[in-house]
């Protein structure tokens, strides 16, 4: 393979073990998704389309709904904060911790905190932070990054995990997944009890009632909110939906789309501090609404990507993701959604990630499985156009110069002449054409025999 594109280079260098883990994990989840939606609904597309419109509507009235959500949370006794950028978001978390005298935090999975690199920031400020989702916990002890939105350690196998647990003093080497899980249960249980603050993200926010919704299978977000006295929910402003009843639509889609479950095990609807008579749980709830360039995306012609509910279905179905794995996308959000979202959220670092929109065959599978019907292939094309216009070097790597082709295609006489000459292609050794792309392409394929050039004649003489 002669490609110079970074994603191809990463895919080429993956070990067979990792490649297989990525591929099988993705394929299995795709199959489960398909089976669950087909079993439960006569027309699952109707749900996807409706959910897409609900989110598009919310985004296009976001000023109204964000204001409504703020008022609802305050009515419920939660404190609402706003953070325009990364720095303010991180400082807001730190200030809340200091204000309540908190030293150690347990947190559940949140892609937004990955964006902010919140964990390292808080550790640098002398705080202890523990990831409690099993996958995220393993990433934390390995100082690694998630390679999938829903199954963050899909690139790892049990042997590597067992070695990490041994290294961290969580018991002798044992690679039985059940033993690994039990050890994590015992270890993290003590962490929940010792911590003084719990932090979660939010999968959805209901503007009407001022509730965040958390979707987990492990129950770690429940534990963060049972054992601790302060709860911070850190939320991207695009997570809002109008009403509680709308949540039913999304919850029915997210579990089935992500893992093929009818519902994810735990759906939590949190609207404020615990009730007075409840002995366990947070007495204070803080909601931090974070922009971090989401309004830039809202202003762009790719605003549909903000509908995303982070189910991972587009990753699982994508032929590129299956080959490359998530780390190849060099950013927090991998796969088709990441190929759109990551360059957009990169701000003035857009050129560095401008090659990602090209990591697609435009087959359209990502759009077909998307629970909010995001036209990802269209958005990829818009970003390819943006990269070309801005002359982003990363996007140009390995891309042939198509100027001559463009001239030929836009001049009818030249096109006609080229077609009549097409047959000469059958008599010359095309693999010797000294064009890097042509040579690379023919390295693994054979150019078929040219059989065209007759259409115009036929069209003119047809009866």
């Amino acid at each position: 393979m002669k490609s110079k594109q970074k994603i191809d280079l990463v895919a080429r260098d993956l070990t067979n073990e990792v490649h297989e883990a990525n591929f099988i994990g993705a394929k299995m989840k795709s199959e489960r998704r398909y089976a669950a939606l087909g079993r439960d609904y006569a027309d699952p597309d109707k749900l996807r389309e409706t959910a897409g419109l609900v989110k598009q509507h919310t985004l296009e009235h976001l000023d109204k709904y964000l204001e409504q959500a703020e008022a609802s949370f305050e009515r419920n006794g939660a404190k609402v904060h706003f953070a325009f950028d990364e720095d303010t978001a991180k400082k807001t978390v730190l200030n809340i911790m200091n204000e309540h005298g908190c030293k150690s935090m347990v947190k559940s999975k949140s892609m937004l905190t990955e964006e902010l690199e919140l964990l390292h920031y808080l550790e640098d400020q002398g705080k202890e932070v523990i990831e409690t989702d099993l996958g995220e916990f393993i990433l934390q002890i390995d100082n690694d990054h998630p390679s999938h939105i829903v199954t963050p350690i899909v690139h790892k196998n049990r042997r590597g995990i067992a070695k990490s647990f041994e290294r961290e003093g969580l018991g002798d080497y044992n690679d039985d997944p059940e033993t690994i899980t039990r050890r994590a249960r015992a270890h993290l249980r003590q962490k929940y009890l010792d911590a003084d603050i719990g932090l979660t993200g939010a999968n959805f926010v209901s503007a009407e009632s001022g509730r965040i919704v958390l979707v987990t299978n492990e129950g770690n977000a429940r534990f963060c909110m049972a054992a601790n006295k302060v709860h911070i929910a850190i939320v991207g402003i695009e997570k809002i939906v109008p009403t509680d009843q709308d949540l039913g639509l999304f919850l029915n889609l997210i579990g089935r789309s992500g893992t093929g479950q009818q519902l994810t095990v735990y759906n939590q609807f949190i609207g404020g501090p615990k009730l007075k008579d409840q002995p366990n749980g947070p007495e204070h709830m803080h909601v931090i609404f974070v922009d971090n360039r989401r309004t830039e995306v809202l202003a762009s012609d790719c605003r549909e990507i903000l509908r995303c509910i982070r189910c991972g279905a587009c990753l699982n179905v994508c032929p590129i993701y299956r080959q490359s794995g998530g780390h190849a996308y060099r950013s927090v959000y991998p796969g088709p959604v990441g190929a759109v979202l990551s360059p957009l959220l990169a701000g003035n670092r857009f050129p560095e990630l401008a090659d990602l929109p090209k990591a697609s065959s435009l087959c359209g599978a990502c759009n077909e499985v998307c629970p909010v019907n995001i036209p990802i292939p269209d958005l990829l094309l818009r970003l390819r156009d943006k990269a070309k216009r801005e002359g982003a070097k990363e996007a140009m790597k390995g891309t042939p110069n198509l100027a001559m082709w463009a001239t030929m295609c836009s001049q009818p006489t030249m096109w006609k002449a080229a077609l009549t000459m097409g047959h000469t292609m059958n008599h010359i050794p095309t693999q010797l054409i000294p064009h890097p792309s042509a040579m690379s392409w023919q390295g693994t394929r054979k150019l078929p025999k040219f059989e065209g050039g007759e259409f115009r004649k036929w069209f003119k003489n047809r009866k």
Partner: protein
Amino acid sequence: MSSDREKIFSAIRAALDPLPKRTAKPEWKRELIVCNPSGEFSSLKEQLADKLVFASSRYCDSFDQLAETLKAENSTFGYCDPELAPLFEKLDGITFETEYDVAKVNEYTFGITKASAAIAESGTIVLKDGDTSSRMGALTPWIHIAAIKESDIVATIPEAIDRFGDDPSIVFCTGPSKTADVEGILIEGVHGPGIQIGFILS
């Protein structure tokens, strides 16, 4: 802080102002999201029983059977909601405390708390903060027994949402706590219950 609020709101308005028209909220009916029934059932209770098992939870409606299950799991000491204690005291060979003591987090092997509702179409147990005597009691023991009044079984998710009221912490539990993070292999009982039982009080 208020300046960040203003920055966000003005950025949103600046992004949306140039749009020639805005997407209307689609009208959708509740039937859209109600899933195909998995069989024919004579009652919601029967449908719930089927779906609980489908979601890897367990269904139970007899005190004797519950006592047997707990003994078979070697789970004879736990926590119970004080209001439910009179009902469950008759469990043979089983003892519990009615005040959750955090020091005993690893000693309580079961927890019995009230469910506010159950959803037949998905086999979901609904816990509301106002009805749960202790969040820890419903979460930390290996076995959670949710006591559901038969009259609190609803057919669909939208009906369960209708009952939210102003409760600050509602949990839908559809199955035991689980993970498939390690090589996609399903393991039950990560941070919460490894066994979830829906116990119907007729």
